[in-house]
């Protein structure tokens, strides 16, 4: 069952969420990008703006229409909600040699995520496997996930950096949302709404949304199909695990290391990268101590520091770790690939390194070797 939400009634959806006690997070234009941040009203949405992305490039452009969700994905991902860049785990205070430890209180605020793309839903599902479904669920993550509501937006356009179709993660959301919206601009600006949960159903009922008619539904489908057609980037993933494992000592790693800045941008923007560092701090007296958890990256030397130095000293070994983890060992660990094809790591790499091109290079070098043998 699909419903229809008039564009002019989008505010009502936000209001209903607010009335239900949700803090809203959604896209808005800030610092030359579209970012997810606290959303007050529809007026904050990046209406009439789009993004143009290429390897190492991201630019905002005016659209000729009034689309609210007429962009693809920006540098922030939703992982900031569930796995914040920095969070305090506990603090401890010493008095007369006795330490008392106080845990950081868990968040209580419900949040509604507005405008979650299909690839991002997959990214959340992937992080769930790491932080929610393992032997030790992360309490902060689990709490935030439990009190979050997801309003998905299906993609009706794609960026040149997108390759969700290769990863089977888009362009439309198929699970993991409370409501999903497909934005239609013609003939009238509206959304076709799909319900994905009882909470979503309740929202539809609160708003009293009418059913979407067949032409609307067909137009929504056409929009998604259009996005699918626009996707030109590919990553052949059926055999990529074996391909990378076979080529751990390939010269291509040196080649990519000559370009890689080991700046860690790819891991920071990646919606599935979950590595963190634990940092202990004190005040000057040493009587107050805290431990913080912050995003870390396998591109850092400190990351593999053991007595005597880092295990992964070269950029070559760090890029290899990242790519083989993302596309190969992630499968061994979590039964899924670690990549959702959102293209962030391609767009936000200052050197424009493209993982799909790297995978192709390995595959092609094997083909060349095969051909040379013949």
């Amino acid at each position, binding site marked *: 069952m699909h419903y229809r939400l008039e564009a002019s009634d989008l505010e009502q959806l936000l209001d209903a969420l607010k009335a239900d006690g949700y803090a809203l997070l959604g896209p808005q234009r*800030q*610092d*030359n*990008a579209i*970012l997810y941040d606290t959303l007050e009203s529809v007026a904050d949405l990046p209406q009439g703006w789009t993004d143009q992305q290429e390897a*190492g*490039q*991201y*630019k*905002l452009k005016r659209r000729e229409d009034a689309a609210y969700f007429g962009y693809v994905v920006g*540098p*922030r991902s939703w992982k*900031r909600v569930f796995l914040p*860049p*920095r969070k305090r785990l506990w603090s401890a205070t010493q008095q007369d040699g006795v330490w008392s430890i106080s845990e950081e209180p868990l968040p209580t605020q419900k949040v509604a995520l507005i405008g979650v793309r299909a690839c991002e839903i997959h990214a959340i599902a992937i992080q769930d496997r790491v932080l929610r479904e393992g032997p030790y669920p992360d309490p902060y993550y689990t709490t935030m996930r439990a009190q979050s509501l997801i309003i998905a937006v299906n993609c009706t356009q794609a960026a040149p950096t997108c390759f969700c179709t290769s990863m089977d993660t888009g362009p439309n959301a198929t699970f993991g949302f409370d409501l999903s919206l497909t934005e239609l601009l013609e003939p009238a600006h509206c959304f076709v709404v799909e319900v994905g949960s009882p909470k979503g159903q309740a929202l539809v009922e609160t708003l009293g949304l009418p059913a979407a008619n067949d032409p609307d539904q067909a137009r929504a489908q056409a929009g998604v199909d259009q996005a699918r057609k626009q996707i030109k980037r590919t990553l052949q993933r059926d055999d990529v695990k074996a391909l990378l494992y076979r080529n751990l000592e390939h010269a291509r790693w040196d080649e990519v*290391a*000559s*370009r*890689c*800045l*080991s*700046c*860690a*941008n790819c891991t*920071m*923007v990646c919606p599935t990268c979950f590595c963190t560092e634990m*940092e*202990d*701090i*004190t*005040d*000057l*007296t*040493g009587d107050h101590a805290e431990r913080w958890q*912050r*995003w870390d*990256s396998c*591109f*850092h*030397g*400190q990351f593999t520091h053991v007595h005597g130095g880092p295990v992964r*000293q*070269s*950029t070559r070994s760090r890029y290899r770790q990242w790519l083989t983890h993302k596309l190969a060992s992630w499968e061994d660990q979590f039964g899924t690939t670690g990549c959702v094809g959102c293209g962030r790591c391609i*767009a*936000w790499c*200052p*050197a*424009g390194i493209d993982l799909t091109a790297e995978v192709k290079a390995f595959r092609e070098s094997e083909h060349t070797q095969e051909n040379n043998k013949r």
Partner: protein
Amino acid sequence: MTQKPKLAVWKFASCDGCQLSLLDCEDELLAVAGAVDIAYFPEATRRMVDGPYDVSLVEGSITTPHDAERIVAIRKNSKKLITIGACATAGGIQALRNFRDVKEWTSLVYAHPEYIDTLAHSSPIAEHVKVDFELRGCPINKMQLVEVLAAFLNQRKPLVPNHSVCVECKLNEQVCVMVTQQTPCLGPVTQAGCGALCPRYLRGCFGCFGPKENPNTASMATQWRTSGASESQIFRAFRGINGYAEAFRLESERSEQRLQPTEQEAK
């Protein structure tokens, strides 16, 4: 309570900016003063207590034969020696002389160059004595300074990560100026610590904290060229405040080689 550790602050060739960071710790200064005995800090107090000192903070680079002797004496008199700032850790802006003929310069600058007793190089403290910790920055970040002091007082490793400025941008959730604006930025090869100050104001990083661990300056320069930076821009970016730090020095030398043919063509 045992005696408070004695802190000394020493100045070599520098602008004093890093020492001032310590005075700038308005909120924390009381805590610092409570935790340590500021035994020698001419910039701040006339009180001078003899060594040995538990912690010496050393600002500035070594530029004269006299300074080269003085730092050895300070080292002998200090349990821990921490250098603060780009001058002390990489020679500073005055290390630009290292690329030129100092004799020629002094003859041009001074009426009586024979009175000038200076070394041919401005060198970091670590080239002269063992340094326990190098705090980067031009100037240093005062919060990092407090952290380093807290770490030494509490026998732990200072929490001064050696990753890129990019990580700081991303942890602060700042947008990359290089990717969105093609702004030349040294962030990807520069050590974090400043709080990604310049990118926060939509400017490129100037590399004040010097090269990060594993810097790929060659790729950085290529990237700048691709996005339209001129060779002299690249040259100047690397031959700056941290121009004598090895990775930046090598890159500026490579860039200089590329510049020379063009200069000759111009002639």
